[in-house]
């Protein structure tokens, strides 16, 4: 409400209140019940009173000072009940939905409650909560509101209620997270809850109660660090976008921390650190690498404005001594203060170093000396034990149990495929993985799956040199007789492109990765093995297999892939008999996990950044790291775009929801500046004054 006063009482209550001042008047002017006292003479008294009376108006005022004070007290109380204030927001509609962004970027300390101040020093989330609290304060009788917080997952903080106290209480429970921003999910949740009638009712319930959808105002409190929401119809939701933060906030972030074995020195680890500068000024950043808290190395990086740079630092021994499994890349405090960094959570990157020796690799082949030999090198031995089984092993119960229990870290299927994908990384040689993903997806026609195109003598024209699987590999110098033309799924990365199409690719699958080589190495022709490619004569062949194990096994164990906050982690037990493991979060919170049958443990609570420790039967068996590593969240600048009316001025960018552009209402949703607290305080002061005057008059 932008008007000066807000009504807080019903007419009847007002009538009652309006009767108070006349009552005070009446009481004052009604004959006071005075105690009669007989005195020798009223002569002197009368003279005194007359003197006082004639003295001045002031005397008269003094006489009725108490009356004035009492009336003032009531006036202040009435004024307080009118809740005078200014600014404020017009709350229209009877239902409000507050979508509070609590993603990582909302921890940036550059917001201020003053909507016209662009640069503050308070966390955006705090200011967002304050604004929501201000809006809750302005809710009128009959208004209901709902609060949803959203980061990676939207969470209903409070369902629709008109209990503003409850709303405020629940609002304060919103905590900052390090998750990404998913406005779409929050909007869907809000819409579902706002229009419950649209929830489809199960079969057999023919009467769907159709409540005419009530409009609701959706306040989106965010810093705009998300992509536009597509495929969402706002319907009767009226969006209001309240941007928070500043368009010029600088931030430095560690955007990657990877460990891998040193190429030059065996048994040593090195770390690759990438830092990004999201400010407008180039920065000379110093990155510190710490292992178990002790500084291992530090290096200076020149970060041009808006760009990232990486550096490789030696870590030390690959074998992690107890307590040395935590690797930490940190931007130094001097760097951060020089850059004016405002977001703390992304200034540190974490990596876990695991003991690599426990890995198990299964090679399923009808016999392939080339691969077997390539997997028999001493370097690969250090990475893990390789077991070789014939394809018939795939039908055995032992294999099924091991695959389901995720006993293996990597299974290599040479010219054979299992019925279903194992719970591990997999490499398929000359075969497609089971399932539809590699066969044009579930929508593809059934017959297309069998008739995967075969290419005769494909010519390798390019390969993905940046992919770790093909690191240090030259592929242009061999021929292939026959290969499958691959139709990799959407999320796949093509490894080798032939003129006819991809012949090798890698794609993620449920937290694992499937690598598919379209061409077999050896083919059986008439009972004898024949070479399908002369790759086996090249240096690149054993290197490729080394890469495969490094990528799938060593990376997994040495410094496993950094997980995103909130991502579910599958944890394979070291021993199949283990029924319970404990996951200790970086802050020391322990969570006990149990599993059903042979399935791996699933840990869902990775909500904080840092290194988690997995304890199995009292022994720390594994560590994994959770990092923000999210450029969208680390780039904390409020999105801006050019103002169409004034090209010189940038303005806060609109957000696109479905087909609707929601203009940012910068300076909107200000909390109403309320005066009633001060008024009540003044009333209290008047009360004290009245008490004092009364006592002074009587006793002094």
């Amino acid at each position: 409400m932008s008007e000066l006063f807000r009504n807080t009482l019903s007419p009847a209550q007002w009538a009652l209140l309006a009767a108070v001042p006349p009552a005070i008047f009446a009481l004052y002017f009604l004959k006071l019940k005075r105690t009669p006292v007989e005195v020798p003479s009223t002569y002197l008294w009368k003279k005194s009173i007359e003197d006082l009376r004639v003295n001045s108006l002031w005397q008269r005022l003094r006489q009725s000072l108490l009356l004035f004070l009492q009336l003032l007290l009531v006036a202040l109380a009435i004024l307080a009940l009118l809740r005078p204030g200014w600014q404020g927001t017009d709350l229209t509609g009877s239902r409000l939905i507050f979508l509070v962004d609590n993603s990582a970027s909302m921890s940036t300390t550059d917001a201020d409650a003053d909507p016209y101040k662009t640069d503050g020093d308070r966390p955006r989330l705090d200011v967002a909560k304050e604004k929501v609290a201000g809006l809750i304060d302005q809710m009128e009788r009959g208004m209901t509101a709902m609060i949803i917080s959203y980061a990676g997952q939207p969470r209903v903080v409070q369902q629709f209620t008109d209990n503003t106290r409850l709303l405020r209480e629940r609002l304060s429970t919103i905590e900052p997270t390090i998750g990404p921003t998913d406005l779409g999910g929050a909007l869907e949740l809000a819409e579902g809850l706002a229009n419950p009638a649209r929830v489809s009712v199960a079969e057999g319930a023919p009467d769907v109660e159709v409540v005419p959808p009530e409009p609701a105002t959706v306040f989106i409190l965010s810093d705009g660090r998300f992509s536009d929401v597509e495929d969402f119809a706002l319907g009767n939701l009226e969006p209001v976008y309240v941007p928070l933060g500043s368009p010029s906030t600088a931030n430095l972030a560690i955007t990657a921390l990877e460990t891998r074995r040193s190429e030059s020195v065996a048994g040593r680890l090195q770390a690759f650190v990438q830092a990004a500068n999201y400010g407008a000024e180039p920065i000379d950043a110093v990155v510190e690498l710490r292992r178990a808290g002790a500084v291992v190395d530090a290096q200076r990086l020149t970060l041009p404005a808006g760009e990232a740079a990486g550096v490789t630092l030696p870590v030390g021994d690959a074998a992690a001594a107890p307590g040395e499994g935590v690797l930490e890349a940190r931007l130094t405090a001097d760097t951060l203060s020089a850059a004016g960094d405002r977001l703390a959570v992304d200034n540190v990157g974490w990596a876990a170093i695991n003991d690599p020796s426990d890995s198990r690799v299964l090679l399923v082949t009808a016999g392939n000396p080339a691969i077997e030999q390539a997997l028999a090198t001493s370097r690969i031995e250090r990475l893990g034990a390789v077991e070789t089984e014939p394809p018939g092993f795939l039908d055995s119960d032992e294999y099924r149990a091991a695959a389901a229990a995720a006993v293996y870290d990597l299974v290599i299927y040479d010219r054979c495929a299992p019925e279903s994908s194992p719970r591990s990384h997999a490499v398929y040689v000359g075969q497609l993985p089971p399932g539809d993903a590699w066969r044009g997806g579930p929508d593809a026609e059934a017959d297309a799956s069998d008739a995967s195109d075969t290419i005769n003598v494909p010519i390798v024209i390019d390969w993905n040199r940046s992919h770790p699987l093909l690191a240090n590999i030259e592929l242009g110098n061999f021929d292939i007789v026959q290969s499958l033309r691959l139709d990799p799924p959407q999320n796949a990365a093509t490894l080798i492109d032939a003129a006819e199409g991809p012949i090798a690719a890698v794609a993620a699958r449920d937290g694992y990765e499937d690598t598919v080589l379209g061409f077999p190495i050896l083919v059986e022709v008439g009972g004898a093995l024949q070479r399908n490619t002369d790759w086996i004569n090249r240096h690149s062949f054993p290197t490729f297999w080394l890469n495969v194990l490094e990528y799938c096994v060593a990376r997994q164990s040495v410094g496993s892939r950094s997980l995103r906050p909130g991502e579910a982690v599958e944890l394979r037990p070291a021993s199949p008999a283990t029924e319970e493991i404990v996951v200790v979060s970086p802050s020391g919170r322990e969570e006990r996990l149990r599993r059903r049958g042979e399935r791996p443990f699933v840990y869902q609570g990775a909500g904080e950044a840092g290194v988690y420790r997995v304890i199995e039967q009292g022994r720390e068996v594994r560590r994994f790291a959770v990092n923000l590593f999210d450029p969208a969240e680390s780039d904390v600048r409020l999105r801006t775009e050019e103002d169409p009316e004034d090209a010189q001025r940038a303005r806060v960018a609109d957000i696109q929801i479905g087909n609707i552009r929601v203009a940012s209402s910068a300076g909107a949703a200000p909390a109403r500046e309320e005066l009633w607290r001060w008024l009540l305080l003044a009333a209290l002061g008047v009360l004290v004054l009245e008490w004092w005057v009364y006592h002074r008059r009587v006793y002094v």
Partner: protein
Amino acid sequence: MPTAQHLLPPDLARQLERLELVTRKVFRGRMKGERRSAKKGQSVEFADYRNYVAGDDLRSLDWNLYARLDKLIVKLFLEEEDLHFYTLIDASPSMAFGEPTKLEYAKQLAAALGFIGLIRADRVRVETLGGERSPAIRGRRSVPRLLEFLEGIEPAESASLEEGVRKFCLRNPGRGVVVLISDLMDKRGYESAMRYLVAQRVDVFVMHVLSPAEIDPDVVGDLRLVDCEDADEAEITVSAPLINRYKETLAAFTAGASEYCSRRGMNYLLTSTERPVEELMTTWLRKRGLVR
């Protein structure tokens, strides 16, 4: 007599025996008394000579002078007279306040003063403003009578100060000493009453008696003050300014009375009933010259 004890304790009486009433004016008494009067008379004290005029008492001729000067010279002697001592007590209801009451205090004063007068053979008469009057009494023997009369004085119906004094003056045209014991609380003012006394050319002592409650009122709250004489009401809300104002008014009132009396040759004495009568008699009245 218990009343006598009460109004005039023996201790006080003993002290008072040493005192006598003083008047600055020499008055004409009716009977021979113990003090000189302006009238030449028959005392043994020589006053003056004068030529004989026809009608003079031949007994007063100074025959020795006639022998020497052959002139008839009359020898004049001072006449010793009694003093007319009036005590005028205000017995209005307002005097019935205080602890002891102002009336009681007035009675004690009157008893003390009357006692002095009686033992000095003065003519003592006590009257109230209401018109009650004692007979004029003389002599030590009459002390019980005086006390009895005083004892009998009750707070009477309100009589205005002016009316009472006027009637007193009409009844007692003679000269003498008049002690008016009153609280002077008359809404019509005390001035007109005083004027009668001035005109009477008597030696006037005004003893203004107030109770402590009047000098320093100890009241609290919202009160309706009722005048005990005329049932007049005054509503007050006691406050510091009001109390201060009251005190100022009282001070102005007493100061005004004091000045009024001084200007007209009357003695004004303000006393509180708290002050013991003994002290008043022996120190204050002595200083002010009523007794010696």
